[in-house]
């Protein structure tokens, strides 16, 4: 994900956890800011000297002005938001580009557990039980692509990742990614604007 961002960019990491990505970006000369929901996460980030504020992606993104950032990152958080569509729209208002990553519910292991096991899937990437998980809005890569089409968002790059975050390096059609990609990472920008 960090590789997608040019040196000297201004970045907002929404749902930045304990600031690992922000620290990585900072080491690469990138001006990073963060929002994090959990108080412990925020305090740990601030303790690392990061410019992180406590906030909720669903309600607080509206307070940022248009075009405030070159990139807005939403890493493994989309599926935990209450209004994913609104969040995505805000991301692309605040940032010229958005980088979104999420667990792909269409991954073959998930399908198999439902189909054969008959229970809500639990994988190494998604170990929480159905009653204990913050993830309330799962989607597949196919679902996400469809949503992007609906809100008029351009997909500049799309990468499917395996469990360890390594890209699947194959030239393959969409249904393949939807089946074999454990996570999806998308670089998005606003459609219909010439640069």
């Amino acid at each position, binding site marked *: 994900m960090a590789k997608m961002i040019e040196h000297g960019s201004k970045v907002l990491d929404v749902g930045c956890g304990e600031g690992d990505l922000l620290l990585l970006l900072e080491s690469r000369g990138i001006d990073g800011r963060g929002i994090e929901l959990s108080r412990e996460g925020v*305090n740990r980030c601030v303790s690392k000297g990061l410019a992180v504020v406590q906030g909720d992606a669903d309600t607080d993104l509206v307070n940022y002005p248009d075009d405030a950032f070159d990139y807005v990152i939403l890493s493994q958080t989309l599926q935990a938001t209450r209004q994913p569509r609104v969040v995505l729209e805000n991301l692309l208002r605040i940032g010229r580009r958005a980088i979104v990553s999420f667990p792909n519910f269409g991954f073959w292991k998930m399908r198999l557990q439902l189909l054969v096991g008959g229970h809500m899937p639990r994988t190494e990437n998604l170990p929480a039980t159905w009653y204990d998980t913050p993830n309330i809005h799962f989607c597949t890569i196919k679902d996400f692509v469809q949503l992007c089409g609906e809100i008029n968002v351009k997909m500049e790059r799309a990468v499917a990742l395996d469990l360890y975050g390594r890209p699947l390096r194959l030239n393959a059609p969409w249904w393949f990614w939807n089946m074999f990609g454990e996570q999806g990472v998308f670089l998005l920008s606003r459609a219909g604007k010439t640069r």
Partner: protein
Amino acid sequence: MVVNVQSIPSPAIHTEERAHEADHPSSLLATFGVDQPLRLDCGIDLAPFQIAYQTYGELNADCSNAILICHALTLDQHVANVHPVTGKPGWWETLVGPGRPLDIDRYFIICANVIGGCMGSTGPASTNPATGKLWGLDFPMITIPDMVRAQAMLLDRLGIDTLFCVVGGSMGGMQVLQWTAAYPKRVFSALAVACSTRHTAQNIAFHELGRQAVMADPDWRGGRYFEEGTHPHRGLGVARMAAHITYLSDAALHRKFGRRMQDRELPTFSFDADFQVESYLRYQGSSFVERFDANSYLYLTRAMDYFDIAADHKGVLAEAFRDIKTRFCVVSFTSDWLFPTSEARAIVHALNASSARVSFAEIETDRGHDAFLLDVPEFFEISRAFLHSAGVARGLKTGG
């Protein structure tokens, strides 16, 4: 029924010492003559005037390690040294000292008594050189911007062009924000704790309650109590009791006192201090009047009420911080209902809107507004880390 009303005892000790400190403080003193007036917001030029201040640590060779601490309403410049009147430890010794987050082995720390205060900077308790008597209510009305302007004049006198950081809580936090709004290029980083950009109606209401208590005391004598040999200790004591409740939280009061009785098992069926909380509040009131001047209390609470950063920017707070390069850290406490987290969020939103670099943390504690003065490890961690990363950004050499 005999009504045994225990009023707040008149402070027999300390009155003389306090009065002495107002003109001849046990501090460093910067005096400004008639040629260097302090231009006040009310239109009056205050000259001559003086600023009493304390410093800790050493200024480095390129004057880049200076931290200004702005004190709160009833505090003063004695941040990390024994108080000359009460003999108590400095009010922020938890935060300021060798090896503390505001490390005096690394930074040069300055704290000045605010204009309008009563511990050595010119205020209503000081002698008016024109009359030879105490200023009293002849003292002009001062504002938070006036306090900051005076501090800037002090820094000019000390040869400090840019502050590494300006730090403060409550009224001190208001000064921090005013510093960044008025002198953005002079402040490299800012730590604003438990504060807001303006008083709400409720805040003003509580301050008015306190002022009315002072002015209703027959011994206030229209502010001329010193000349008439009285002191409005009852009114000021009650004002302090009311204010002190706002500095705590319901949970903390319940935890500390509950409904427990003071030294007895049965109520006395009188107006004695039956409950521990009553006894505690009376003590807070009486110890306060020993060290603080009643008129000064009126002036400083008024200054806080008048403060409103957005007022100069048509009510749009973000405009006050437009293009600012200062690094901010805003801190609030969960149980602070005087300056609740919503106020801190408003500051953060305004800073985000101006693309300023800001960290914001809300710290979980049940100790209310006063938490910023107490031993709260998370607050120390955050302060230390913020200053450290600001230091790295500024290229401060690690000392000590």
